[in-house]
């Protein structure tokens, strides 16, 4: 076991991006928190949401609706619009302070019942960023894992040590499937805390109430979500990692192309021969399965809109379905088979150096 931990350590030495990239994202978030521009920077507030706190009267809101209607009226020319909007200039000036608000200011002006949702969206967004970053790193890690040392011939050094190819492949598979999602989980939770602290400090200085950032149910939900995403990533992406590692072990050159082109060729062939997209749908299903399960089929980028009802509703049912689907279990079986083939290729691949 101790040997195995050294094999894992070796991967972290070689592929520093696994921890450097999330560290950089965290540093950027921290910087954003310190300067007050926390990650998404500015949030556009629905003016009606902010009416109460911004001292808007009912007349103002009626004007606002009229203003929006005119602005989006396509039957009017630009000149006519400008003419009609003139009388709202005063209102627009008064609304200026609602544009480009930082999150703590948004929290201060929106109604209490909408705050928890906004904060959840913020947490989900930083989590999504971390998982996207590490997902990308995991993709390239797997492609590189059994190719890099063949390219620079250091494979001859590793093979001069009394390590079996099974141990080597297993350690790399463990890093790609388990360690990288775990790093993402830890980084995501740290990111949530950085954002929470940043918004809290900024809000406290400005005198805004940001207690909702530390609302137990909100924090709990976001941590739970992080845990679920991590578990789902580990189980769901195991066959994908194994496939990429097989390409990495086998490819004479450019494992990227060897991994991508054959399935793409088959997709094209299917399209030409049968006019169908079954394979392509399968591929996107395997690649985006977790994302889709979390955010529904629309898979919109979270954090841009404040209305997150659908987003949060999608969480529960989709994930349960994902974990219990035959597709998940079958994927694990396929992953095991691919790893076995990868070990075989790693061991018996005849290099003509």
């Amino acid at each position: 076991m101790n040997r195995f931990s050294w094999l894992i350590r070796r991967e972290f030495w070689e592929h520093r991006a696994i921890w450097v990239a999330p560290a950089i994202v965290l540093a950027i978030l921290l910087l954003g928190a310190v300067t007050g521009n926390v990650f998404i920077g500015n949030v556009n507030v629905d003016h009606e949401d902010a009416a109460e706190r911004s001292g808007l009267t009912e007349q103002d809101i009626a004007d606002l609706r009229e203003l929006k209607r005119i602005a989006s009226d396509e039957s009017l020319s630009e000149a006519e619009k400008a003419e009609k909007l003139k009388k709202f200039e005063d209102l627009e000036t008064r609304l200026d302070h609602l544009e480009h608000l930082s999150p703590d200011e948004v929290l201060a002006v929106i109604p209490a019942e909408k705050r928890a949702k906004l904060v959840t969206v913020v947490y989900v967004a930083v989590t999504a960023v971390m998982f996207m970053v590490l997902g990308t790193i995991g993709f390239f890690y797997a492609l590189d894992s059994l190719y890099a040392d063949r390219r620079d011939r250091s494979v001859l050094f590793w093979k001069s040590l009394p390590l079996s190819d099974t141990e080597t492949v297993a350690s790399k598979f463990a890093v790609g499937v388990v360690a990288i999602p775990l790093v993402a989980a830890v980084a995501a939770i740290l990111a949530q805390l950085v954002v929470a602290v940043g918004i809290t400090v900024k809000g406290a200085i400005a005198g805004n109430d940001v207690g909702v950032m530390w609302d137990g149910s909100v924090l709990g939900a976001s941590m739970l979500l992080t845990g679920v995403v991590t578990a789902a990533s580990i189980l769901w992406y195991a066959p994908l990692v194994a496939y990429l590692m097989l390409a990495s072990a086998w490819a004479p050159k450019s494992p990227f192309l060897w991994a991508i082109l054959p399935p793409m060729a088959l997709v094209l062939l299917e399209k030409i021969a049968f006019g169908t997209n079954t394979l392509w749908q399968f591929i996107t299903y395997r690649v985006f399965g977790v994302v889709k399960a979390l955010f529904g089929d629309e898979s919109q980028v979270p954090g841009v809109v404040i209305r997150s009802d659908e987003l949060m509703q999608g969480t529960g049912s989709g994930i349960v379905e994902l974990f219990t689907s035959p597709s998940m279990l079958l994927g694990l079986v396929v992953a095991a088979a691919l790893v076995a083939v990868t070990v075989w290729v790693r061991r018996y691949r005849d290099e003509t150096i």
Partner: protein
Amino acid sequence: MANLIEAAGLTKTFGSTRALDGVSFAIGEGRIVGLIGPNGAGKTTALKAILGLSRFEGSLNVLGKDPYRHRHQIMQEVCFIADVAVLPRWIRVSQVVDFVAATHPRFRPEVCEQFLSRTDIKRSSRVKELSKGMVTQLHLAIVMAIDARLLVLDEPTLGLDILMRKQFYETLLNEYFDGERTILVTTHQVEEVEHILTDLLFIDRGRIVLDASMEDLAARYVQLAVRPDRADEARRLNPLSVRQGLGRVHMLFADAPREELDKLGDTGVPSVADLFVALMQGARS
């Protein structure tokens, strides 16, 4: 003494070319064997078969095991340096030493430290920051700290300057070789290894051309420097090769009557390089 390596009918084909063509040889414990041959002769192919890195036909036995099926087991007692460039470039000196210490049961960290302390290698450097010579020193320090029975060196000094090459073999002979360990080395620079070898294996086009100990060599082969006027007499004794020198004709004989040669001119043991050239030419003509 027991044989560490036994090969019989070792054959390896790449497409239509036979890199190894039914090669048979045995290497005993405590020998320092030079595997010598021109480019593409099959040296590296043979070494890779011995190290369990490639498939082969025929039978091969290394430390009592089939290397292809039991590579990671025989690696407990076998070390190899494939050539200077194979240490991963991204790794730090301290990391590679720690890693080998953790994964190799026969690695002796204190020995490695002792070798490294004599060099200018910084423990925190990455391999890519080291000079070529330093990388070899590092690799050698690691390998020599492994208490192995068989050490395989494939062109270990490629790309090093002459001082370092000399130093490399001196360290190997004086500090590593203890009379029990076995070393198998391939190199182009025959003259640099010949004084440390106990045995020679010449290989050409996948076949063994010569398999002899250095003592056999001195007994069987004679180098004769003869004056031009007596060269014809010497030619009648069937030399392996004839080379025109300054005021002398140099000839190389195998199993020739020593007394007659002594009468013709100055005799001596041929250098490995001369013998190599003579045998290669003979094998090819």
